[in-house]
């Protein structure tokens, strides 16, 4: 199985970008050989997807990665260190990177994971996504579909 996961919060402006991309994929029946899942902030739900039959995950989320607003980067969780300090995992306290570390500690199988991180501009309550992100929305869709469509060969398999 392959999954695209949308993370974020609808009511906090650009933090909703991952959810809106997943919603677009679902509404336009673009799920061909993968499933798109709205995770929101439910990191425990995300953890339940670390199963033997999952080969590829693409996480889409707003990410403060020092780019111009709206620009994006696809990277591996192994490429980064989370700056967040959290005491627990809940819908109000969570972090994708730390959730992946949690899955490793639980001994869950870890598939190939990529993150499509989009630089936010505005995280104000009850705001829409910024114009910069709206302008690039189709680019995000194309990048996500291209990334999840790639075939990865396990170097350990024959």
């Amino acid at each position, binding site marked *: 199985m392959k999954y695209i996961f949308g*993370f*974020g*919060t*609808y*009511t*906090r402006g*650009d*933090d909703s970008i991952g959810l809106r991309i997943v919603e677009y994929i679902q509404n336009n029946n673009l799920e061909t050989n993968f499933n798109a899942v*709205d995770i*929101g*902030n*439910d990191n*425990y*739900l995300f*953890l*339940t997807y670390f199963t033997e039959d999952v080969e590829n995950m693409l996480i889409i*989320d*707003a*990410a*403060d*990665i020092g780019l111009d607003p709206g620009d994006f980067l696809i*990277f591996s969780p192994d*490429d*980064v*260190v*989370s*700056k*967040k300090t959290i*005491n*627990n*995992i*809940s*819908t*109000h*306290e*969570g*972090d*994708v*990177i730390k959730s992946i570390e*949690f899955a490793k*500690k*639980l*001994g869950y199988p870890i598939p190939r994971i990529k*993150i499509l*991180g989009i630089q*936010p501009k505005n*995280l104000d*309550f*009850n705001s829409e996504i910024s114009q910069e992100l709206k302008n690039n929305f189709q680019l995000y869709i194309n990048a996500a579909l291209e990334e999840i469509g790639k075939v990865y060969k396990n170097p350990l398999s024959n």
Partner: protein
Amino acid sequence: MGRRKIKDVHSQSKEGCQMKNINIDVHHLTRVEGHGNIVVNIKEGTIERCEWQIPEAPRFFEAMIKGRHYSEIQRIVSRICGICAVGHTLASLKATENALGVTISEQSTILRRILKHAENFDSHILHIYFLVAPDLLGVKSVFPLVETHKDVVKIALRLKRLGHEWGSILAGRTTHPTKCIPGGWSMIPTEKELKQLKQKIIDSVSDVEETLKVLISVAPNIPDFTRKTEYIGLIDDYEYGLYDGMIGSLTPDGNINKYNVSDYRSITNEWVSPLSTAKYTKHFMDSYMVGALARININYDRLHSKAKETAEAIGFKTLCFNPYMNSIAQFIECVHSAYITIGYIDQLLNIGVNTEEKPTKPTKFGRGFGSTEVPRGILFHEYEYDEEGFCKGGNCVIPTNQNHANIQKDFEKIVPELIKADKNEDQIELTLSMLVRAYDPCISCSAHYLDVVFKK
């Protein structure tokens, strides 16, 4: 836990507790959804401050829905909460349908009841395992449990997945459901999907049984505290009060009074406390409690027999006035939800699922009221629509707000008891933190964007 200026200032006086100085400032409490503070100041044995503070900013959802069409309202108010999204959707739909003169079909009603159970199960599992269990197992968060109780964490995650799939099969997704609309459903699950759901629930029985064993093993760590209070929850002639019914008030003498949902303002009697940006509520007494413990106290006889067996195995008896037992009540409700849902699915399969059913149309436009139980307690929505179906105004009273005054009253009773028992500052802080967590408060929502630096 966010603590500020905690001082180890216990008096060494022979008078012990009478001379104790304590300064607790938990700012903000962790392992609850949202932000709340615990402030206790005791000087030479005299309590100067003992407060449960809510500092959250208002969110203005009632203003957001003004001028919006009835078809949009449940989607908007669903966003009030990422955990109780189903409950807000259903309370909203019931209020809208009440205002629009809409009666939904039996099939739609049963599907909504199943969806309500899905949300309760999903939320309760999260609360019991990830927010409460660390306290009962003597650790500060779920993280150390990976080392010491890996199998328990895995059970929790499997049950969490079940709760999510339970709701998603019915409503498109559990968080902010898409298929529930005014008049019924935009899409009805197929018989095949319902059979799959039934099998998933049956397959989880062993995990539920393991959870019972875990709870029995940690039950002695639940604080022994009682304070008689009033309990408010739905009373439903059809089943255990959850999706529908009249408002029930249970007073400590065991009397139950019932009220129409349209009279909810006479129950909640909202008022403003300087301790809180959220409104307090009161009815017969200075405060009341809502949530799983209130529901079970009011509706014990309507629980599924398997849930009653679970209650007996843990030693839970009604009337229970210990708020810490709310988490146990939540697990008993999980068992009820699992078995009652299997019964509902069988009922639908026997009737024959009609996937062609269309939503019922409005017959009028006016004022309407809706109530449903969400994991944290009874929820009220009220709207008024103009003759074209646009919202003129609304009112939402959420359960966590209804519990704030009761938490404060619990604080005022338990702190003197803890001082008298000569508990130290850390013990008092932990006991109060556990008390708040037992109520499973869901205080607001926040953002969780990634914040990372590249290694190279």
